[in-house]
């Protein structure tokens, strides 16, 4: 009887604690998103505050460049090669209908350099490096390694976050350039599966239609992609606080949000490019 009474009083308490306003969409969905955006902006501001202030963790930065950039290259290269090959094979029938198969190298090159190369590479990068950063920082957080660093006099934000964001910002453009080159090689193979085009002719055709307005905006936007992937992943990992469950959640949220941010940034970049050119 006493148990029943206590259960009833608990129910009554819950009914009192959960306010009516928490059931409206603003409180349920929009306010948490705005809160997350505000926290991310604070995190970003802290990064810019810390990045210029000494001491500089150059050794850790180079180590992160190796782990984030170089270690991602095989995956990015394989994806790029398949992307170039498949795009060429899929585009051929449509161009063949117009008798414009000779335009295949130029068309594939413009598609890869302008859009597909940067976006697909950034997504792969978000999947590999982003999840890695998110999970690594989250596990350090839950095992209190970050707190231990703080106690031992090392600035954990500078050592863990700043180095990773800089490494990601500068490594992703290089990965995209390498991926573009491998993609174009895949496209060359694709062209020659049903045709006979020399490498020299393919090379000339590729650069015949490319201009600086194709190359520079594509490269510049990848710096922002890299920055955003690492910023979100570091934020999610650094602020993880649900024990071991939080590690998985951080890794998952890092990939999802980083991928979403890539598409949003790409949309903005395309609009800006079309305004300028």
């Amino acid at each position, binding site marked *: 009887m006493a148990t029943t009474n206590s259960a009833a009083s608990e129910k009554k308490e819950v009914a009192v604690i959960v306010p009516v306003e928490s059931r409206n969409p603003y409180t349920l969905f929009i306010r948490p998103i705005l809160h997350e955006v505000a926290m991310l902006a604070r995190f970003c501001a802290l990064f810019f505050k810390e990045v210029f202030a000494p001491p500089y963790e150059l050794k850790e930065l180079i180590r992160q460049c190796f782990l984030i950039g170089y270690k991602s*290259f095989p995956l990015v290269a394989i994806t790029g090669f398949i992307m170039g090959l498949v795009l060429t094979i899929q585009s051929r029938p449509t161009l063949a209908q117009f008798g414009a198969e000779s335009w295949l190298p130029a068309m594939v090159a413009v598609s890869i350099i302008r859009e597909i190369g940067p976006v697909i590479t950034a997504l792969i990068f978000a999947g590999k490096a982003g999840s890695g950063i998110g999970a690594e920082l989250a596990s350090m957080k839950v095992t209190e390694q970050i707190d231990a660093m703080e106690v031992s006099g090392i600035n954990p934000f500078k050592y863990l976050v700043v180095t990773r964001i800089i490494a990601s910002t500068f490594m992703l453009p290089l990965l995209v*350039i390498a991926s573009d*080159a491998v993609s174009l090689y895949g496209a060359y193979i694709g062209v020659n599966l049903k045709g006979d085009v020399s490498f020299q002719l393919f090379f000339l055709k590729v650069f015949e239609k*490319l201009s600086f307005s194709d190359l520079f905006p594509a490269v510049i936007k990848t710096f922002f992609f890299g920055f955003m992937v690492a910023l979100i992943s570091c934020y999610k990992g650094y602020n993880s606080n649900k024990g071991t469950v939080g590690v998985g959640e951080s890794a998952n949220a890092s990939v999802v949000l980083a991928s979403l941010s890539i598409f949003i940034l790409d949309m903005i970049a395309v609009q800006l490019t079309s305004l300028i050119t």
Partner: protein
Amino acid sequence: MSNKTANNTRLGLFVSLSIALLITGIYFIGKKQQLFGNTFIVNSVFKDISGLQIGNNVRYSGINVGIIDNIEQITDTTVKVEMLLDESTRKYIRKNAKAIIGSDGLMGNKIVVITPGTPDKAQLANNDNIQTAQAISLDDILLKIKISSDNAADITTNLGLIVRNISNGKGTVGKLFMDTVFAENINQTLINIKQGAGGFDNNMKAASKSVFLRGFFKKKKK
């Protein structure tokens, strides 16, 4: 320690190769746009540039020798086109060369085609003007096709009218084909002519035997 050095070496190699690829791309795109190497400027004034844009190619003897560097409207009817040409082609382009706006294939971009001048003329100097010739544009071709089709329509209308008149038996040809009385008359006329010719032949035979005309016919036989 050695592992760290190897990693750094690999990273350095990756970074260097990627930057080298970027520089190669910039070089080849820049080379195509005449950013590297010696160039000279040639100007032409056109009445209509047919959608020519900055960056379009300039072609000489079928080879891309430069690009359009600037396009400027100078009066209400003329447009000045500034072309950046490769210095190595200067010796081939003479002062009486002509620039024509053409098209790169059926669906391609607009280009400027420079037709060769004559060897007796001097080479072009920097900032020289070359003459232009108006190329036949697609609009001109379509206009001519329209005129031809209008003419064809007129001709078929007139032919239709003639055929209708003939079938209605109007005019000589119409009567010839459609009027049975007229045809009968012609038939009778032909019979009369045949009979008249036969009678004339008999008369001439009789005349050849006449005393008065025998001498005349003998002379004619000789």
